[in-house]
């Protein structure tokens, strides 16, 4: 594998509905932005790029099979190589990694990842039905299963076992919405209070409408290059923003489609196979986990995501990260639900299993310098979803994981102010960040680490 740089990106403004353009046109907005940001014109980039990877989740939403090739031809990228990836909510994260692999393997020097979803073409509850079809149609969907319901069941178990509260979940919603207030690409830029979140209509107890991300139309694109690719682009006239951003680690994990099938492993198996490096090396943490297991906790059960833990551990190992909370300067993670942001803090080792609730409301995952209207006991330590995440930016599925990549690139370049027209969300001098993309009830999860080069 050779070094791969994520050099540029673009995001269409995420919106509830974009009837003004078809999906090809929306992708082109993000794609053009990424090209313009390296100061190239369209024909020159078309000449230099070696190929692409396309990301979109559901053929049902567009009622169009082979939509990927329609984007490829609209962007003038034919006859260059391309393929479509699909992995539920993690489609964008998988696309990011497949484009990385295209370059890391030496197959391409310059590869563009683009993704989209147009979810507005059906009514919301039909959209929920489409997404619910990404659960087992023999055993889960026909019972009345749908994703908010699945996540609500996970969190009732999390609450029961670990004492997590709805107020802690609401703190995630307040944080992400208020962050998005400063992000012009976000769909929902509102200042909510804990009471607003709790008083919103109940969707699946205890998750309210403000605990849950929304459906969106949108697109995103990321350009990757090898050292040789950088030279080719520069020879073509590109001005690539410095410092460069290296993708220093990728990891991916999977788990059973039906969350009822997840195992419930004992303490020893957990410590041997799933503990983070930091957890395994701490006597205090081992004792903490022993107490949890003695009280009946089993892993992953339905309260935790083994795929997320696997992806994180794999990416950390590759990037040389041993203490994520200290060594990551920000994380853009897949907060389809406030509860899943809390679960993911634990999977990614930002805190221990069972401590995600208190971590959520502690302040550690908040941005410094923003008034959240909350009393936070701790200083900001590792902002999570400084962009506003899925809950506030929106979740046009195939674009979402790539959107995270774009925002991470801009954070590490220090160009948030330029791209957002507001530097409030610029993390102070970040060196390393992580993006996390998540499908289903935790079926496919990707974690990618990006680092600023000196």
């Amino acid at each position, binding site marked *: 594998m050779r070094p791969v740089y994520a050099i540029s990106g673009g995001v269409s403004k995420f919106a509830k509905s974009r*009837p*003004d*353009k078809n999906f090809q046109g929306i992708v082109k907005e993000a794609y053009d932005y990424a090209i313009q940001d390296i100061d190239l014109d369209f024909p020159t980039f078309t000449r230099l790029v070696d190929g692409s990877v396309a990301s979109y989740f559901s053929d*049902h939403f567009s*009622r169009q099979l082979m939509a990927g090739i329609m984007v490829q031809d609209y962007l003038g990228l034919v006859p260059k190589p391309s393929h479509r990836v699909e992995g539920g909510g993690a489609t964008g994260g998988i696309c990011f990694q497949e484009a990385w692999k295209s370059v890391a393997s030496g197959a391409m020097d310059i590869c563009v990842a683009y993704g989209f979803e147009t979810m507005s073409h*059906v*009514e919301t*509850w*039909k959209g*929920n*039905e489409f997404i*619910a079809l990404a659960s087992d*149609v*023999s*055993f*889960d*969907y*026909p*019972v*009345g*299963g*749908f994703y*908010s*319901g699945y996540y*609500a*069941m*996970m969190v*009732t*178990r999390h*609450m*029961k076992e670990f004492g997590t509260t709805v107020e802690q979940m609401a703190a995630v919603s307040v944080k992400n919405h208020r962050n998005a207030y400063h992000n012009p690409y976000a769909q929902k830029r509102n200042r909510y209070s804990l009471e607003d979140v709790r008083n919103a*209509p*109940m*969707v*699946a*107890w*205890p*998750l309210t409408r403000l605990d849950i991300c929304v459906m969106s139309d949108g697109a995103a694109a990321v350009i990757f290059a090898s050292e040789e690719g950088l030279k080719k682009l520069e020879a073509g006239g590109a001005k690539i923003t410095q410092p460069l951003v290296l993708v220093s680690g990728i990891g991916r994990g999977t788990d*059973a489609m*039906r*969350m*009822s*099938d*997840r*195992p*419930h492993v004992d303490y020893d198996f957990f410590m041997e196979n799933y503990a983070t490096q930091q957890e395994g090396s701490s006597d205090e943490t081992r004792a903490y986990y022993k107490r949890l297991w003695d009280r009946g906790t089993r892993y992953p059960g*339905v309260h935790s995501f083994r795929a997320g833990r696997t992806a994180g551990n794999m990416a950390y190992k590759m990037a040389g990260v041993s203490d994520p909370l200290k060594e990551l300067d920000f994380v853009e993670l897949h907060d389809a639900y406030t509860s899943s942001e809390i679960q993911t803090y634990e999977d990614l080792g930002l805190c221990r299993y069972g401590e995600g609730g208190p971590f959520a409301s502690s302040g550690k995952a908040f941005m410094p310098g923003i008034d959240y209207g909350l009393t936070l006991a701790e200083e900001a330590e590792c902002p999570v979803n400084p962009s506003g995440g899925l809950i506030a930016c929106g979740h046009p599925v195939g674009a979402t994981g790539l959107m995270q990549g774009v925002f991470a690139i801009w954070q590490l370049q220090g160009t948030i102010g330029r791209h957002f027209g507001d530097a409030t969300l610029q993390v102070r001098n970040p060196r390393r960040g992580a993006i996390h993309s998540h499908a289903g009830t935790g079926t496919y999860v990707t974690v990618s680490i990006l680092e600023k080069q000196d």
Partner: protein
Amino acid sequence: MSKIPSQRDESLGGFIVHGVPFPVDTDPEGLAYLKKLAPIQIEQEYKITYLHSYGQDSPWFAGLANKRLLASRDPESGYTYATPRGNDMASGRETEWIDITDRAAQVHAFTVCYFGSEEFLPETPYVLALIEFEDVNTLLLTRLMGVDPGEASLDWIGMHVRPRFLRNSKLKPTDVYFVPGG
């Protein structure tokens, strides 16, 4: 939980329009005006009936139709799946059927759904629950009846429950549901 709605329900349906605004002349001015037009949106219907096979899981549904709840078990390790699987995940071996109708069972996790997929909206609010069974390694997703959806409580977790079966099978996993007791 119920609130006074401040927004009317909407559907995608609308009037059929005959005649679409268009420049009278396709001269340069008229053609330039086309860039200012709002998009045209039409309805497209997509409807299909699938002949869905339960395949190797079929006996589980036949069990429900006969008021028995089956599970799959690895014949050697004894690892048991409440939601059936034809093959064990660890050994790859074909599983055997066992009857767990009368096993002790309790609620492992639950939710009350006030919304859902379009197909299930008329049934809201309904309670979904994951059920754990004695000496069974995995869970079963089901509907929980006999509890008040308006009184959801974490105390429901751990509640002892027992299966009930529809008198007339629909050959769906909802042929079985659970109620407090047992």
